[in-house]
């Protein structure tokens, strides 16, 4: 049945487009792209914007130099009051702070991940204009379920990973990611009288450690 309709649909499409004047069509390469392909902010301004946008989402943001990264992560965890945390299998071992019941994701079940109070991950990129954190779900960023079920996500973002505009993120992708999640604030709904309520499904709390590495 489906093979049959494949031909039917494709033939209808072909017939519908048959009379389009080839000369009037624009080839993909000629499509107008006069929008901003890159930002114009200084590095400091860009990073400040990223922090500002994250804080607008009520994300907690703490900046630290590279050397203080482990300590900062540990302090964030300690301050959160959470002791059972999930971690991607590829998370740098040094980030696994002491005093925590770590559930490292070696094939954890959903139930096991549900038991975690939070998760710590790396990230791929940050887009300052919209305060977006990009995950490509590499070994250090973890499977998608890991950043979905726990209520708190502690995300490590390097300054060198932050771009100003969305097109710059796309330009950084040497090839399209197989998996990606773009996070711009905690989940939200405005379905009831347009009152924005945060934290419907997905982590209600987001903390970001912005590492002042070599930009």
């Amino acid at each position, binding site marked *: *049945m*489906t093979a049959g*309709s*494949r031909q*039917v*649909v*494709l033939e*209808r*499409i072909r017939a*519908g*487009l048959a*009379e389009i004047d080839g000369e009037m*069509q*624009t080839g*993909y390469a000629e*499509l*107008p*792209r*006069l*929008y*901003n392909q890159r930002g114009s902010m200084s590095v400091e301004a860009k990073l400040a914007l990223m922090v500002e*946008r994250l804080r607008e989402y009520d994300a907690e943001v703490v900046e630290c130099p590279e050397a203080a990264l482990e300590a900062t992560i540990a302090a964030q965890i300690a301050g959160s009051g959470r002791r059972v945390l999930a971690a991607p299998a590829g998370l740098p071992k040094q980030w696994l702070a002491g005093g925590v019941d770590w559930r490292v994701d070696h094939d954890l079940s*959903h139930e096991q991940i549900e038991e975690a109070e939070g998760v710590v991950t790396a990230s791929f990129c940050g*887009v300052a*204009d*919209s*305060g*977006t954190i990009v995950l490509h*779900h590499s070994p250090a960023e973890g*499977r*998608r*379920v890991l950043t*979905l079920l726990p209520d708190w996500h502690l995300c490590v973002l390097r300054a060198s990973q932050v771009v100003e505009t*969305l097109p710059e*993120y*796309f330009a950084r992708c040497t090839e*399209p*990611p*197989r*998996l*990606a*999640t*773009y*996070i*711009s604030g*905690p*989940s*939200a*709904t*405005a*379905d*009831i*009288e*347009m*009152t924005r*309520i945060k*934290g*419907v*499904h*997905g982590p209600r709390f987001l903390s970001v450690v912005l590492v002042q590495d070599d930009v």
Partner: protein
Amino acid sequence: MNAPVNHPVMDPRVAAPFPEAALPVLRNAQLRKNVAHATDVIQTKRNKLVAEKSDWLELRDAASAIRAHTLEHLGEYLEQFEERCTAAGGVVHWAADAEEACAIILNLLREEQASEVIKIKTMTSAEIQLNPALERAGIHAIETDLAELILQLGDDEPSHVVVPALHVNRSQVREIFARRMGLEDLKDDPQALTAAARTYLRKKFLSVPTAISGANYLIAETGGVSIVESEGNGRMCLTLPRTMIMLAGIEKVLPRFRDLEVMLQVLARSATGERMNPYTSLWTGVTPGDGPQRFHVVLLDNGRSAMLKREVERQTLKCIRCGACMNTCPVYRQTGGHAYGSVYPGPIGAILTPQLMKLEHAQTLPYASSLCGACYDVCPVKINIPEVLIELRAQVTDRERESERRFFDPIYLGMRMANSVFANAGRFKAAQRMARIALQPFTGKDGWIHKLPGTGGRWTMTRDLRGLPDQTFREWWEKREKERAQ
């Protein structure tokens, strides 16, 4: 279960004509208040963000061009998508119409032995009337978008493409949740209501192995797909289950991954007045160990391919379902979405639904507009909605004008007569004189007409009409020229 007295009819084949369907809504003060409030909120946010975006016009140009180009090469891009998605472990199905799409999906669910499915909001599934088909097959579909959950539990229908329950206020939601979730002490503040939904749905997310979704974008270059959302229920449904079935109109395809840099910038700003929506997910086929291990895409035609031939119609398919048009529409503001009797309401509904129905139904929708053009101004992909409305009016009229029932229709008669009159200045002058004479008996002492019979009465119902002056402009001019000549 007590259904609302007037369950909105969203099937264009049986829905009342727009002017009739609008009547009960116009008398529903609560709904009009809710609609005005919701659309005002989104519009204000949207306008602020658009004003701050220095390259908004360029983004709009690019978005429009990308979508137009895609449609001009639709077959190629769909085939490329199918090839790449399949290579990545997905299974692609093609449905010629709504019935076939339902059949394909039901078949897949039978293979899964599913008795329940969790759903991410998708208007496309409402378009093919999937939920009733599932119910008939004994499969319970659980809507997981808060608005869709509200509507499902309240036995109601969506009235907006992005904020489907905007016509429902908090106390109405509280009543629905309290009744259906058994939570008598539930408060009516949005926080409490949302928390109730979170708890109710989490159990489902973790247990139901099959999910159905729509699609925001299909990427031809990679075979990847994207879902744009706010609440996180999408991520739940596309991550936790074993099987994911995605229903996508054939127009949802984009050429390349990179094209998302344009579409994502214009979509969130237009739809919810945000720089970016909370969650956007992108995945390609099946990834071992991460997410559903069975992934099906059902490509839906259902009348779309018939819209490709002419540019004036084809542009309708550029739509990215942002809802900006209905947020700004002064007609929608007064009537909300249900009056359109279709899954797609507002300006886009007024042009999309009649075309999907091949003009056999929803013929009053192209007339459900004052042609103000506000929708065109805000459309992020530059669909010239007024142009399409006028085109569809011409098509509807051409179909109708030969039929018996239109022969004595006052508007059809009037238009025929007017055309004959406009063809010749002598005839026009005579018609002006006749109109003056004909309206004289209806003209009051104050020189105004307060009540007219028939179609004219539709005007005088709420407006007076000044009586025709004794002298037309051209009569005055003629006289003046004579006097000057002397």
